[in-house]
C-alpha cells in the first residue's frame, strides 16, 4: 500500500519533470554569465525546452503549462506581460501539429525545424515589440538571439534526451 503511494508520487514527479525543468531553465536564463554582450543575445532556454517536449512528449507538457512558463519568462524579464506566453504557445501549437512530419526523422531535420520555428517567432516578437513601442525597432539583437538559440539547441537537445530517458514510457 505504502509503496504504491510512493510509486505514484514518483511517477507524478517524473511526469512533472518537463514542466519543472522548463521553469528552472527560465530562471537559469537570468543568471549573469559575465560575458561581454552576452546578456542581450543569450539563447532562449525556454524556447528550446518547449519545442523539444512538444515534439517528443506533448502529453507531459500541456498547453496550459507552456502558457505558465511563458508568463514566468515575461514577469522575470521585465518585458511586456503576455509576449513570451503568446510566443511559446504558438511554438507549441506549431510543434504539436507537426509531430507526424518529424516522426522518425533525424536530429538534423528536427534542428532545421527548430530553426524555422525560431525564425518565425523571432520575427513575431520583433513585430509585437515594435507595435507596442509604436516605432520600428532595430531587429538585429532579436536575430542574434535567435541565432544563439538555434546554435545552442544541440547542447540542450542532448540534455533533454538524457532527462527524457529517465521518464516513464507513454501509456
Amino acid at each position: 500500500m505504502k509503496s504504491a503511494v510512493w510509486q505514484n508520487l514518483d511517477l507524478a514527479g517524473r511526469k512533472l519533470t518537463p514542466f519543472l525543468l522548463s521553469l528552472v531553465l527560465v530562471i537559469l536564463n537570468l543568471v549573469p554569465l559575465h560575458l561581454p554582450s552576452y546578456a542581450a543575445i543569450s539563447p532562449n532556454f525556454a524556447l528550446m525546452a518547449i519545442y523539444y517536449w512538444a515534439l517528443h512528449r506533448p502529453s507531459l507538457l500541456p498547453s496550459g503549462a507552456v502558457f505558465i512558463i511563458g508568463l514566468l519568462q515575461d514577469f522575470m524579464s521585465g518585458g511586456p506581460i503576455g509576449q513570451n506566453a503568446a510566443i511559446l504557445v504558438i511554438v507549441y501549437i506549431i510543434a504539436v501539429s507537426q509531430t507526424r512530419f518529424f516522426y522518425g526523422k533525424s536530429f538534423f531535420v528536427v534542428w532545421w525545424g527548430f530553426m524555422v520555428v525560431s525564425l518565425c517567432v523571432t520575427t513575431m516578437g520583433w513585430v509585437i515589440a515594435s507595435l507596442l513601442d509604436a516605432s520600428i525597432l532595430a531587429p538585429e539583437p532579436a536575430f542574434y538571439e535567435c541565432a544563439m538559440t538555434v546554435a545552442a539547441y544541440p547542447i540542450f537537445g542532448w540534455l533533454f534526451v538524457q532527462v527524457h530517458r529517465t521518464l516513464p514510457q507513454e501509456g
Partner: protein
Amino acid sequence: MKEKPRSVARDAPPMRSLAQRFAFLLLLGTAVGLLMIGRADPRIFEETRMALIDSTAPVLDALSRPLATASDAVDHVRELTHIRETNAALKAENARLMQWQHAARTLFAENDQLRSLLNYTGEEPVHSVAARVIGDSSGPFIRSLLVNAGTREGVQRGHAAITGAGLLGRVAATGERSSRVLLISDLNSRIPVLIESSRARAVLAGDNSRRPSLTFVTANTSVKIGLRIVTSGHGGMFPTGLPIGVVAEIGETGIRIETFASSDQLEFVRLVDYGLDGVIGKESAATAPGVGRNR
C-alpha cells in the same frame, strides 16, 4: 537516433480534439489580452512581477556567486598575460593622475575657502546601498539588471544606479529584497544631459544598442568625438554632473555615446538616493500610467 526517447512522439493527437483547439485559442487570447492591459497601464503587473523576482532572488543570488568567482578566475589568467603592458600603461597613467591630484587638491582648498566666504551649506549627504547583480534580465528589446537590494535596504524607484565609472541606470521597480535596474541603453530610457565642456543641453536616448544616442542637442552646438557627457539634473531625476560617457561616433545613425559604465562584467552596483523625486514623483509613481516609460 536509434534510442527510443529521441524519436518524435507518435501518440500525440495533433490538434485533434475540439477542446484542444479551444484551449489554444483561449491561451492565445489571454496572452494578447494581457499584452493590451499591460500596454494601457504598465504599472499594473509591477507588484506581481517584483514579488516573483523577490521569491527567486535568493536562488539567483546563490547562482550568481560561483559564476562571478569563475569569471574572476578567468580574468586573473587573462590579466597575467598582459601584465607587462598593463604595468607600463598604468605607470604612465599614474604620472598623469598625480598632476590631476595636485590640481584637484588646489581646487578643493580654493572651493572650501569660497564656500566659507559664501556661507554655502553644501548638499544633503546622499544615502547609498551597494547591491550585487544577481540577474541579467536583458533581452533583445530590454536592457535591465536584477540586484539583491530592495525596499528592505531602503531602495526606491528612481534611485540612481552607478558604478565607479559612471551612471549605469536607475531603479525601475523594487521588491522587498530585490530591484530591477533599467539601464541607460534601454529603449525606454531618456536622460537629460549636458555636454560637459560647452554646457549644451541634450537628451540621451537609449535604443537597445551598446551605444545610446544623443538627441535634441541645443542648436548651434558643435559636438566632437571625445567630449564628455554628464547628467544635467533637469527634470530632477539625477543630480547635475554624474558622468555618463564620451561621444564616440558621429555618423548616419546620429551621435553615439560610449558609456563609462558597462553592465557586461558587473558584479556590484551602487544604488544612490539623491533625494530627488523629479519625474517619478512619489505619489504620481503609484497612480500615473506610463511613468514607467519615463518619457
